[in-house]
Structure formats: structure tokens, C-alpha cells
């Protein structure tokens, strides 16, 4: 599946009738491609609006190739806004930690769940295990990275350059890059599941060179991925059924202004 095909996705909300994984009631939205600012605003809003006993899943794409930066990742002097514009690459700074990701031939997920259910590290591992389960159901040879080691600094280069313990890898290379933010008493985790490898473009944009190329679904599967097959697999592990719905417009608009502003994007 190419990024272009994502524009045909119809916004759909999904809600479970019975408690799903972790005993939570899962609401999910599969959305059409949006700008980086809107995607970050919707993720943020999903955490702010999370109902007691609920959890929220979003699956989405990006309307143009987009560089997303970690909350505290240095960008000034590393990435050139003029070069990004010339290459047709948008930029947004995430509310979450971690490092740079180039979003294009990929599917992004976000999950908001109560911090009272799982702590940050436990949530990180649990979500990655759920993602791995969905990917394994498609025949992808995934595993959870268990290598011990310290977390990388925000300035340590792009996200997909190397894997951290608890992340989803395939054949020793990172397939899913994720990051978290705790918003009030909600953990928001979002991440990129690579369909193709666009991460090499990050070096042309200004990121430091080196590291191992990531794994991608297009390379790992010996068959074409059917349209929406990945989305269906992900919804399946969270035991959700599709219904229509819409996120809160007022909160989303206010947050979008923040994520669209240069003051936020180029804050460091």
C-alpha cells in the first residue's frame, strides 16, 4: 500500500460494547490523511478527552511527507526550514519524546489509556506486544527487542536508527518506532509502522548519518499487503468493531494552532 492510497480512507470510529484489553472500553478511529499539526492535535485531544474506564486508538496517515520531531529533540541548526520546503517535506514537533521520524510510506497508530492501569514502561511494552501480535497475524516475523541498554538522548539522531528494549523489531531491525507522553493522568503513545523505507531522507534533511536501516513491511512480507489489511489487524487485537464518529472540534482546533506554530516546532 502506498501513502497515496490512504486518502481514500473514510474517517470511521470504532467502539467496543464490552470491555476489551486491560478491562478498558476501547474507542478507535481510522482516519484519512491529515497534516502533521492536525494529527498531533487529534492525538493530544484523544488524551484530554479520554473517558473514565476508556482507551482510545487512532490509526492515521499524513497528507504530505512529514518530519516529526521529539518534544525535546534539538532541531535549530540541524534541520533547515527552507530545505524542508524545497523538498516538499512538512515538519511538526510531537508532544511525545523520542527522536525524528519521516512519515510517509507508513501507518501511524496512537493509543491513549489511563496511567492508573499501566505505568509508562509497562504501557510501552504492552502496546508494543499488542502491535507485534497484530503484525504476526499478518505473517510478519516480529519480535520484541530485549537488548539491555540505556535510553538514547533526544539529540542522538533519528528514531529508526536503532532499537531500544521493548520495541517491535524484525530480523534484528526496528519496524515500529514509538514515543510517549503523559498528559495529566493519561498515557499517550504513538508510533510509526513502516510500510516502506523513507528514513534515509532524514540524512538529506540534516540528520546525522550512521546506524542500521529499518525493517519495512513491504520487504518482510512475501505478498502485497491488501488495502486496509494492517488497520483491520490492529483493530482486531483491540477487539473493536467499526462505527462512525467524530473527535471534538473545539479542543482539536485550539491544539492545532499550537502544533502549527513555529514557536513550538522550532522551540529548540
Amino acid at each position, binding site marked *: 500500500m502506498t501513502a497515496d492510497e490512504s486518502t481514500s480512507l473514510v474517517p470511521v470510529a470504532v467502539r467496543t460494547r464490552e470491555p476489551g484489553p486491560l478491562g478498558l472500553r476501547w474507542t478507535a478511529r481510522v482516519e484519512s490523511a491529515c497534516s502533521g499539526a492536525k494529527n498531533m492535535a487529534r492525538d493530544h485531544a484523544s488524551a484530554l478527552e479520554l473517558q473514565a474506564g476508556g482507551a482510545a486508538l487512532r490509526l492515521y496517515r499524513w497528507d504530505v511527507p512529514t518530519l516529526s520531531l521529539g518534544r525535546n529533540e534539538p532541531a535549530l541548526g540541524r534541520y533547515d526550514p527552507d530545505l524542508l520546503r524545497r523538498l516538499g517535506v512538512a515538519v511538526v514537533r510531537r508532544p511525545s519524546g523520542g527522536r525524528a521520524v519521516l512519515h510517509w510510506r507508513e501507518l501511524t497508530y496512537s493509543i491513549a489509556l489511563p496511567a492508573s492501569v499501566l505505568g509508562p514502561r509497562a504501557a510501552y511494552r504492552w502496546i508494543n506486544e499488542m502491535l507485534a501480535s497484530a503484525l504476526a497475524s499478518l505473517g510478519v516475523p516480529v519480535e520484541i527487542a530485549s537488548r539491555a541498554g540505556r535510553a538514547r538522548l533526544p539529540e542522538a539522531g533519528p528514531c529508526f536508527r536503532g532499537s*531500544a528494549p521493548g520495541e517491535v523489531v524484525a530480523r534484528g531491525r526496528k519496524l515500529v518506532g514509538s514515543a*510517549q507522553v503523559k498528559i495529566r493522568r493519561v498515557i499517550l503513545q504513538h508510533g510509526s509502522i513502516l510500510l516502506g523505507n523513507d528514513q534515509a531522507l532524514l540524512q538529506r534533511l540534516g540528520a546525522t548519518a550512521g546506524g542500521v536501516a529499518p525493517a519495512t513491511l513491504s520487504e518482510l512480507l512475501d505478498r502485497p499487503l491488501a488495502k486496509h489489511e494492517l488497520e483491520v489487524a490492529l483493530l482486531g487485537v483491540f477487539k473493536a468493531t467499526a462505527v462512525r464518529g467524530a473527535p471534538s472540534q473545539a479542543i482539536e482546533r485550539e491544539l492545532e494552532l499550537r502544533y502549527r506554530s513555529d514557536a513550538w516546532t522550532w522551540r529548540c
Partner: protein
Amino acid sequence: MSEIPVDLTYTKEHEYLKKTSEEAIYQLGITDFAQGELGDVVFVELPEAGTTLEPMEPFGTIEAVKAVSDLYCPVRGDVVEVNAALVDDPSLVNSDPYGDGWMIRVRVADEGALSGLLDGAGYAAHIGEG
């Protein structure tokens, strides 16, 4: 089990306040439980000295294992000192949360407002270690 000193005051968001020898000045950081939950701390963003903090408004952020969390001060007060050592070595939050890993010192406007916070036993119960 996490270390929970009995002579400190705690928030449900996992910050602690430790009274210093100076009147109305409290040292604020995150608890041993919180640092353990977060994992390796790689970045701490703190306000400048002189900043006035409002109750439960985020005053900074902490990043660990790609997870960012806001930091809160539960009461109104002015920042009188910031732990500059955390800029170069944020891992002090992991190794010594109640000591060298402190974050800010705050002149609390109304010490009576601290009475609504948790004591050690209350915090232990809050995190399920009571």
C-alpha cells in the same frame, strides 16, 4: 518496593516536597517510585529561578525512555533555585531522587495549602505499596 521517606509530602502525580532549613522553602522532585516507572531519565526541562508557579500548572517536563511527563508543583510559590546539575546529568533523578536528583526549590506562598497533600503512608497507599 520504592523508597518513601516518611517526613516528606507527596502529590498523586508523584512529586515530593521536602522542607529545607529555610523558612517556607521546599525542595521538589519526583519520587523513587516515579523514577522507577519512567526508567532512564535523559532530559529535564525546568523553569528559571524567579518564576512564579501556580498550583498544578505544569512547570517543566521530564523525558525518559522516549516518554515525556509534565512536572507539577501542587501549591503556589516562587522558584528560588534550580538544580543546574540535572542539565548535564539527568540520571541523578534515577540514582538519587530525594538527594542530588532534586529539581527546584520553591518559596511556598501558603504552607497551609500543603495540608491537602499526601503523607508517606498516604502516598504508599496511592501507589499500592501501603
